[in-house]
């Protein structure tokens, strides 16, 4: 118990003293994960729209595939990309292994199915009349697309939070593809794993606190947005 309390106290000291190493790890985590989700959102929205409103051969198979990808472990994504990006692999010439780009790529693939499936469900739950009303009022496809996105904004926000939560906290793919290189590819989860293995619990707890605080912050924002959007606030 004493160890835990001492580690927690040390963790807060690290955070509030502005420890450069700790905050650098936090910055790397946010940079890579934010970029990964930003890149994943446009294709995910297009795929989700095609799956919800499209009528094409193989649509049901695609839905099943994306649902299956939801349960693929991060290490499997990491392993697959590791093989592709390693020097002997088909994408070895790009020299991406053990870079932030490789980590971002892994996180992109991890959050894409979450975004696709959750937005697809939100679109299916939404009234199709939203799209038709926009179109019949003279909206272009693009305008109608954004109109429907606004109609499902809470579902969209929930998808973004779930996707972001998945990638910012995953350790397997980041460890395999980034290599946990200090000051370069060491992010919050890989640093926690490393510090714990070294017995340096304080830094691990400090980083864990940052993750928890972030999770609380985004959920509080979501609650606030939903409260503002409700019919009877």
């Amino acid at each position, binding site marked *: 118990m004493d160890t835990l309390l001492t580690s927690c106290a040390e963790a807060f000291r690290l955070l509030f003293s502005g420890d450069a190493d700790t905050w650098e790890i936090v910055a790397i985590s946010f940079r890579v994960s934010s970029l990964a989700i930003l890149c994943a959102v446009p294709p995910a929205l297009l795929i989700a729209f095609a799956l919800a409103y499209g009528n094409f051969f193989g649509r049901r198979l695609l839905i099943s595939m994306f649902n299956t990808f939801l349960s693929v472990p991060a290490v499997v994504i990491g392993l697959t990309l590791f093989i592709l990006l390693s020097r002997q692999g088909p994408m070895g010439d790009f020299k991406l292994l053990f870079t932030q780009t490789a980590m971002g790529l892994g996180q992109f693939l991890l959050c894409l199915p979450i975004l696709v499936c959750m937005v697809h469900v939100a679109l299916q739950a939404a009234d199709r009349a939203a799209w038709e*009303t926009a179109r*019949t009022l*003279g909206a272009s496809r693009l305008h109608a697309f954004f109109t429907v996105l606004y109609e499902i904004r809470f579902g969209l926000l929930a998808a973004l939070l779930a996707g972001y939560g998945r990638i910012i906290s995953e350790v397997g793919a980041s460890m395999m593809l980034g290599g946990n290189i200090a000051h370069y590819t060491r992010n919050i989860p890989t640093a926690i794993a490393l510090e714990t293995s070294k017995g340096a619990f304080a830094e691990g707890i400090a980083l864990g606190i940052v993750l928890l605080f972030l999770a609380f912050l985004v959920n509080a924002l979501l609650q606030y947005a939903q409260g503002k959007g409700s*019919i009877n606030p």
Partner: protein
Amino acid sequence: MIESFHLGFSDIHKRYANNRVLEGAEIIISSHDCIVITGKNGAGKTTLLRIIAGLEKPGSGAIAFDHGAAEPWGRQRKRLLRSVMYLHQQPYMLAGSLQRNIDYAARLNPAIADRAASVARAIRWAGLDGLEAQSAASLSGGQKQRVALTRARLRDPHILLLDEPTANLDGESRARTLQMLREFRDSGTAIVIVSHDPDMFADLATQQLQLRERRIHGATNRNPDVVELDSVRQSKQR
């Protein structure tokens, strides 16, 4: 005032899997028309409206604008979406206030110069003034119907399609809806109404049609459109 136009649908077929909904349905819609279509549940009335609106692709058939030549479906759909407006049985209210719903329609019409004034005028026309800030989702059925018609007024379509527009409305809302539809028709907009209660629109209707056995049967009070339908058929062959 809407310029004169004709829109012809000839030999329209539509099926969903093994369910044949329309087989050889034909209809001509011209400016100032008010066509009331009746039929049993599942007769294909809504499907017909959705095809006319360009929201549903017909299995086969010919569509002709002002007796012009047949065009690929993609182009036809674009023209239908541009000139036809479809109002769902339960009008869809976009998230937000009544004002946002009306303003949305005004934004999409490039012909509207002074948007704020047009929106205010349209809201007054529908008798919805004072409700601008109210959430559209919380409006009554009659008010939602009026919001939908107000959006249609700002959209200014050649053809207005309504799916059971007076279902579940009280007497006052019904009378107001009929008055608004009359104004649409008088301005040249063609109206096509699907209803189980054709008597409701007796004063308004220029044609009463029936959809049965997957075809449209006419009990029309205007000259038969044989010549016009022929020209639609010919446009398919051209």
